[in-house]
């Protein structure tokens, strides 16, 4: 079109504008004046600044060739037509700049009339870039927040986050990378591609990619700083260059996902345009990197707590004020044997020991009033019907109507406490008993010596000293017995195996007690089978057992009794029996006869000097030699003790 054809109109407008004090030229809004043929007559400096064209480039030419995107041509023509028809029109639309980038605008078309004739139109453009950007940012942020809220893991949120950001920017590809600390590399969590592009190859390469610090997205990881590449296809260091070219991708930016000061991942976005670094985009999404990093941190912390919950040896639970568990960990199953669903389908009180229910109810009532509980103990029924002691430390959350509890299996401790208590009691009993037993002969020695010292008559003196001597012997026997018991109990008693002629040894014991037997006018017989072996055993200890049992028989049989010792064999063992027709052992005492310090109820009637150690010692010795001992008795009729000792392999018959 010839430019001079419109000179008069242009001049008219410029004069008019000058008269109005530069209303058009000085206007901060971009303003364009076209004639009725849509040819540019004038643009103001704001227009030049917005679109990057100089007025001289445009004047005399149709404007749509410069700033109207192809897909907006119809819309633009429609707006112009209305202007020429004398109507104002307005549209929120897009135009592009000289550099090809798209700009969001609010366009108002106002007719330009001289008299009643429409000679052209004003186009008034308001730049909506900032507003649109803010809107998109807001939309993207909202979408990200929503994605994170609906996901428990970053993997689950990744796709939504990438899509939201890419769509908000009108970019086509988003990739999320997470740092794998063990392998010291970035691995792809997700890759989102807009449906309008074919990026199959690029996506595949990305998903399989592993990047070390400083390489590819690893640069952002290493620098902990966003970075921008205006065209990846001309960047030799970009490893996915070929496939990016194939997908038509050019500009890219990446930003670190920050957790405190640590990079936990990297986000990458790609677009089809070749774009110079845009600080505004980078700034806008820096916050997103922080947000995602924090989310990763939270989910990791959550995972850590979850791991503790799962692996805890203690029983962890959350229970409702309704008395049912709402959550329990695996330890409940491991400790009590029930499945999780079995435990959660019954009121927790159902498992509590009857005797502990009242206290448990009180405890629960305290919790419901908001009082925390420390180390409350009750018994819980296991699946196998046994009970275990549980120690509860619980904190209520009345606003949630929940109780959080850490429960410790205290069964072993309880058992130990009980055992310790029993042991202490036994030890105390032992000490008082031994004290008593030791004091008696000591008093005897002390008093007899005191009498001897004061005695004038020498025969009298000798008699007191004789009693003191006898008391001393009693004391020594007691101390020796105690030492034997102690050695046998601690397993320190040495066993000396030697060949023993059993009959000879037994006869020797009988010789030793001959005086006592004679004094009480007892009859004592020894019987043995003819093929009695020369046995390999500890002669000293075996002798002690026989002596002890025979002495008991003599002592607890009224004068003129019968005592029989029989030696025989039974199932590959040697067997001794010592039988008497003495006072016998009451049935109630028989079971406890071999216990430490136990004396049969009727033993006192015969002798009060007994310590209750003799038969205990006998049992310990027999057991030490690998044998066993038993007793049968009828009160008033007599008693038979028998003990068996194993025949060693080398025993000669």
């Amino acid at each position: 079109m010839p430019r001079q054809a419109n000179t008069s109109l242009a001049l008219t407008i410029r004069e008019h504008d000058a008269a109005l004090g530069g209303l058009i030229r000085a206007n901060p809004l971009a303003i364009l004046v076209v004639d009725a043929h849509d040819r540019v007559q004038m643009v103001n400096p704001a227009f030049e600044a917005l679109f990057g064209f100089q007025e001289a480039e445009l004047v005399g030419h149709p404007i749509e060739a410069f700033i109207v995107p192809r897909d907006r041509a119809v819309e633009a023509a429609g707006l112009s037509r209305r202007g020429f028809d004398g109507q104002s029109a307005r549209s929120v639309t897009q135009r592009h700049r000289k550099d090809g980038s798209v700009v969001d605008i609010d366009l108002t078309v106002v007719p330009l009339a001289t008299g009643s004739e429409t000679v052209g139109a004003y186009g008034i453009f308001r730049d909506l870039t900032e507003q649109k950007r803010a809107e998109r940012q807001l939309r993207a942020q909202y979408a990200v927040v929503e994605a994170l809220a609906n996901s428990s893991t970053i993997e689950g949120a990744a796709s939504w986050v990438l899509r939201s950001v890419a769509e908000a920017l009108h970019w086509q590809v988003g990739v999320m990378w997470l740092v794998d600390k063990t392998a010291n590399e970035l691995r792809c969590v997700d890759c989102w591609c807009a449906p309008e592009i074919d990026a199959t190859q690029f996506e595949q390469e990305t998903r399989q990619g592993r990047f070390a610090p400083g390489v590819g997205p690893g640069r952002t990881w290493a620098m902990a700083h966003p970075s921008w590449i205006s065209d990846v296809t001309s960047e030799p260091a970009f490893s996915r260059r070929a496939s990016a070219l194939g997908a038509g991708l050019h500009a890219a930016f990446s930003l670190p996902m920050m957790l405190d000061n640590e990079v936990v991942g990297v986000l990458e976005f790609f677009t089809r345009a070749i774009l110079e670094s845009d600080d505004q985009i980078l700034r806008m999404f820096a916050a997103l990197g922080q947000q995602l990093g924090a989310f990763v941190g939270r989910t990791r912390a959550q995972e850590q707590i979850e791991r503790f919950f799962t692996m805890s040896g203690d029983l962890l639970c959350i229970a409702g004020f309704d008395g049912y568990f709402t959550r329990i960990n695996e330890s409940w199953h491991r400790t009590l044997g029930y499945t999780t669903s079995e435990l959660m389908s019954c009121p927790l009180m159902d498992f509590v020991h009857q005797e502990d229910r009242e206290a448990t109810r009180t405890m629960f009532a305290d919790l419901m009033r908001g009082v925390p509980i420390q180390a409350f103990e009750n018994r819980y029924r296991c699946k196998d019907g046994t009970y275990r002691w549980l120690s509860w430390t619980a904190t209520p959350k009345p606003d949630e109507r929940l109780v959080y509890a850490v429960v410790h299996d205290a069964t072993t401790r309880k058992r130990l406490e009980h055992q310790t208590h029993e042991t202490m009691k036994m030890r105390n009993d032992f000490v008082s008993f031994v004290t008593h037993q030791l004091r008696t002969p000591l008093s005897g020695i002390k008093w007899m010596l005191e009498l001897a010292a004061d005695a004038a008559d020498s025969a009298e003196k000798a008699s007191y000293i004789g009693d003191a001597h006898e008391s001393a012997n009693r004391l020594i026997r007691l101390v020796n017995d105690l030492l034997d018991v102690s050695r046998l109990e601690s397993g320190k008693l040495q066993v000396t195996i030697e060949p023993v002629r059993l009959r000879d040894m037994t006869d020797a014991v009988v010789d030793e007690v001959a005086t006592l037997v004679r004094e009480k006018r007892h009859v004592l017989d020894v019987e043995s089978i003819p093929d009695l072996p020369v046995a390999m055993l500890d002669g000293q200890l075996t002798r002690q057992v026989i002596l002890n049992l025979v002495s008991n028989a003599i002592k607890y049989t009224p004068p003129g009794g019968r005592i029989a010792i029989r030696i025989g064999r039974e199932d590959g063992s040697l067997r001794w029996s010592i039988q008497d027709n003495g006072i016998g052992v009451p049935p109630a005492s028989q079971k406890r006869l071999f216990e430490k310090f136990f004396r049969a109820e009727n033993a006192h009637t015969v002798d009060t000097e007994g310590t209750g150690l003799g038969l205990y010692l006998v049992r310990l010795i027999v057991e030490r030699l690998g044998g066993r001992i038993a007793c049968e008795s009828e009160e008033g009729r007599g008693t038979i003790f028998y003990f068996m000792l194993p025949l060693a392999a080398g025993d000669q018959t």
Partner: protein
Amino acid sequence: MTVGKSILLAEDDRFLRRACETKLKQAGFEVRVAVDGEEALTFAREKAPDLLLLDLLMPRRDGLSVLAELRRDVATRAIPVVIMSNSSRDLERQKASTLGVVDYWIKSNLSLQELCDRVSQLLRAET
């Protein structure tokens, strides 16, 4: 004076019994000995002594049971009793104390002379 006061000595250990009996008699007391709990009860009922020296661990009937029996019977209720034992368990002391005893002596901690002096002192106070 304490000479001629009657003492019942219940002690099953023959050495201790002999020693006590000898010493108390030398001091001029009239001493009767019982070798077990049953005998102690029988003798105490026959003739209430001025003092009963009572061992705890004895055949047939232990000292605490003797004491309880004596306290049940009006005729023997007032007999002054001293427990002479070698057991220093609190439980036995408590039981004896509940049943009412003048004192509780550990034999091994006393010499015969001390024993004699204490008996004399008690019997002087009684009269």
